[in-house]
């Protein structure tokens, strides 16, 4: 699926030329005539990124940006302006815009920045998934067997001196839990080493690969 870009500018010819250019670069493009229209369009269908003119009537680009950052944090923003102003640029970046471009915008530069922006956003999401998978691993595959061992140790302390059969059974259970944990931790250590090596080519693809590996480890197979 193509990344969806929302172009927000009060001038028809600018909306149209940006729409033409971005469509031919492979993006799905929608347009909005001002800030209010942009918020309506985002409500109806979220966008991966917005190109937001700063000087617009009724609701300025900065006001629109503030609302977008609050209500649609997954949507990235690039600000566009005819009149370059350093303090406005800083303000936009502080609010959460990812970039600030002066019109007329160079098409190649804009497409490059947009691609980089949506790619890093996808990578960010994928890394969050890695994080979740890793937390799941720790909770289910490390902490649970550890608790089991602790419970067995507690039980052993309470067993009467002549309960040899029960003691052996408990020790076997503890040993098995420790073995499982050791095996998984060894795989995890190897995985961490390989992940560090793979991080040189980091990006969404690498992150997705890490997720698959983690899932494989959790299922108990090798990776």
């Amino acid at each position, binding site marked *: 699926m193509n990344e969806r870009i929302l172009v927000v500018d*009060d*001038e*028809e*010819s*600018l909306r*149209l*030329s*940006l729409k*033409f*250019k971005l*469509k*031919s670069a492979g993006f799905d493009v929608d347009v909005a005539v001002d800030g209010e229209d942009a918020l309506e369009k985002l409500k109806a269908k979220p966008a991966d990124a917005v190109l937001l003119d700063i*000087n*617009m*009537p009724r609701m300025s680009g900065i006001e629109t940006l503030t609302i977008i950052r609050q209500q649609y944090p997954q949507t990235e923003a690039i600000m566009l*302006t*005819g*009149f*370059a102003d350093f303090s406005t640029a800083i303000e936009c970046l502080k609010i959460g815009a990812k970039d600030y471009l002066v*019109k*007329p915008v160079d*098409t190649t530069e804009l497409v490059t920045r947009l691609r980089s922006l949506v790619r890093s956003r996808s990578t960010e999401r994928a890394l969050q998934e890695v994080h979740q998978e890793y937390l799941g691993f720790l909770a289910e595959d490390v902490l649970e067997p550890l608790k089991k061992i602790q419970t067995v140790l507690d039980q052993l302390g309470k067993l009467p001196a002549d309960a040899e059969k029960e003691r052996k059974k408990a020790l076997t259970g503890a040993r098995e839990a420790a073995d499982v944990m050791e095996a998984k931790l060894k795989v995890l250590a190897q995985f961490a080493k390989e992940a560090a090596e793979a991080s040189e080519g980091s990006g969404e693809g690498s992150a997705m690969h890490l997720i698959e590996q983690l899932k494989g480890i959790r299922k108990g197979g090798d990776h």
Partner: protein
Amino acid sequence: MAEKKLIQYRYRFLFEDGTEKSFNVALDEETLELVTEELKESPEWTKLKFSQCENCPLSDSVEYCPTALSLAGLVREFKDSVSYTSAQVTVESRERTFVKKTTLQKGLSAIIGIYMSTSNCPVLSMMRPMTRFHLPFANSFETFYRSISSYLTAQFLLLRRGETPDWDLKGLQDIYKQVNTVNKGMTARLHRATEKDANINAVVILHSFGDGISYFIESGLSDLEPMFGVFLNKNHPPQDKF
């Protein structure tokens, strides 16, 4: 000596606060060159070497950029104006009067378009024939259509002279690439000449037409085919229904 015949456009900007600004543009009817009064002073940003366009073919002996000079008076008038300011813009020509409630940037882009293409800039002069059929407040499609029509007329005239015409419009796309380099150069100058965005955005609007024309030629023109059905189906008329 015979007096020059002129094409004249009078632009009037009436703002919501009741203020009004007027500008007269006069062109030589034959050559479509801008007929200008001598400026009392030429600001620094109009010098040729001041942020000179990358593709400027003018020699070092030229002191001032002709396009910047032609715009100086207008730019000064709107240097503190915001692009989206509402205005009623009236354009009077010999044949008709256009009136539109629009934004300042849109009204300015129309008059700046005339100034630029008739200012004796060697690059922008390729746009000059379009000024004879000036259409204020045109939308993008109207401008693309006028532009292509003007270019194809030139190609037909070349054909009649026995020269090779460019029917696939590659030359038109090249012209717009060059024109947009000048538009970009002009916005760089205007950053030094203005405090707000109205003048700059007016040139950015002109730049956007140049940006869109390639896409329009490749994709948009096909959308017009149904309109031209009467020509396109001439040799294959639809079957009689009766």
